[in-house]
């Protein structure tokens, strides 16, 4: 197991209420969970269950209404990958990746060295000077992942990063993500709609109820690492996906 005594993040009794065009939204209620240090946790739930809201709270984009979000460092650095690659179209691949460190005042050589290292890690060598418009969806997401790692974040928040990709690219990107995670141990929280993806990638899967979202299942994934394709057909795998499917179905019918 990758957990150490001190979890990277503790969320206690988190509640989020905000108002938007359609009125007051009770997005999250009574949410309590820990993210173990360097653990890979997935968050799954019905549409509109406040998964994205939770990530936005953790990223500091939305203030919690009640409860607390407690990181194990005082100035947590957060890397975020959105469903869209969200690259700056006027910057080349390399410049998109260097952006996070340009904000910190580090020497140029340090920034470039780090960027080239990450470009290699995500397999984008040769595309440093390409513009985002010339990239496929999968490649654009690799750039986004490399960019999210630039600041060497304490936690990586992934908001359905492969949601817009086709099934095969999606599986390949999942493997890439695990490869990156093995190379750079990080605490990861992945929001996904795909049950098999959640099981395949994670140490632990959290299931969120429909709105207001709270955790209705915390499922440890007892599959050995590194994960391989044939595990998708193992008994453990199908038992876990079944449990998750049943929980989600019940929640949807409710």
């Amino acid at each position: 197991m990758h957990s150490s005594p001190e979890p990277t993040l503790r969320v206690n009794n988190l509640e989020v209420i905000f108002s938007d065009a359609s009125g007051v939204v009770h997005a999250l209620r009574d949410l309590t969970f820990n993210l173990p240090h360097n653990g890979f946790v997935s968050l799954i739930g019905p549409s509109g269950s406040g998964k994205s809201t939770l990530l936005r709270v953790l990223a500091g984009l939305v203030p919690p209404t009640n409860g607390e979000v407690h990181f194990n460092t005082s100035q947590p650095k957060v890397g975020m990958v959105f469903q869209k690659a969200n690259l700056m179209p006027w910057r080349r691949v390399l410049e998109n990746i260097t952006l996070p460190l340009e904000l910190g005042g580090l020497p140029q050589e340090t920034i470039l060295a780090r960027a080239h290292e990450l470009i290699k890690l995500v397999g984008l060598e040769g595309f440093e000077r390409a513009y985002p418009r010339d990239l496929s969806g999968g490649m654009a997401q690799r750039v986004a992942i490399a960019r999210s790692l630039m600041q060497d974040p304490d936690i990586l928040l992934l908001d359905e990063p492969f949601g817009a990709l086709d099934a095969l690219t999606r599986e390949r990107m999942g493997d890439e993500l695990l490869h990156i995670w093995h190379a750079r141990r990080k605490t990861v929280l992945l929001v996904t709609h795909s049950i098999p993806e959640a099981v395949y990638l994670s140490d632990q899967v959290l299931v969120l109820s429909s709105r207001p979202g709270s955790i209705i299942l915390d499922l440890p994934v007892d599959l050995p690492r590194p994960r391989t394709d044939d595990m998708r057909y193992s008994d453990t795998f199908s038992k876990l996906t079944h449990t998750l499917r049943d929980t989600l179905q019940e929640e949807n019918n409710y």
Partner: protein
Amino acid sequence: MRMAGTKQNTIPSNGGLKRLAYLVVSLAAGILLWGLLTRILQLPAFILPSPSLVWQRFLQSLGDGQLIRHTLATLYEVVAGLLIGGLTATSLGYLLAKSTTLEKLLSPYLVASQSIPIVAIAPLLVIWFGPGIFSKILICSLIVFFPILINTVVGLREVPQDLRDLMRTLKASPFQTFWKLEVPAALPIYLGGLRVGATLSVIGAVVGELVGADRGLGFLINVGRGQYDTALVFVAVLTLIIKAMVLYGLVLLIETRLLSWQSWRQEVH
């Protein structure tokens, strides 16, 4: 590992030359037609001067320094107006884009001010501020103000929220967000406003000069009209057209330089 291929965009290589050839042919045909018209209709020169007469008048006014002096005077007004009006509009536009409250407070005035045709109040401005260069710069500033203001606001409002969120998760300072996100993201729309402003500024300067001035191409047009020197009017008008086109081309050049990342600018012909 397998990699998806990149899209290639090809730029036709001899397209520019071809278009230049078309331009030359089209201009030559136009001048030829004009020359034929003056021959056939036998109109007096003060109604429609022949191309050769206009050419002689052009060389003459160029020789005695008249044309250059008035061209520079107008250019000065146009550029000063564009700078002053543009800077004011950009700063106010930035504030309006940032504060919806301010926008709601000011927009009635802005819309009202826009429904007053500048051409109609140009005589007033000349009465109030004199026939000198100041009233012209003021007219130019006013006429370029609105398109640049609107494009600043729209450009900034179009900055994707996801990228704003990204800058926030990276803990970017307000200045960093401005310089690294808002400026480049708003630039395509902003420069579109600047391009319109450059053309309008020329119109503003000439209107001001026609109303009352002691120099400038508009003044030259008035002089030519008063003396039935229609060839001189033609010279002044053609100079104005060329000047407006050069200014427009300059902004366009800045655009293509700054926005080279936009593929559609190369693909659209």
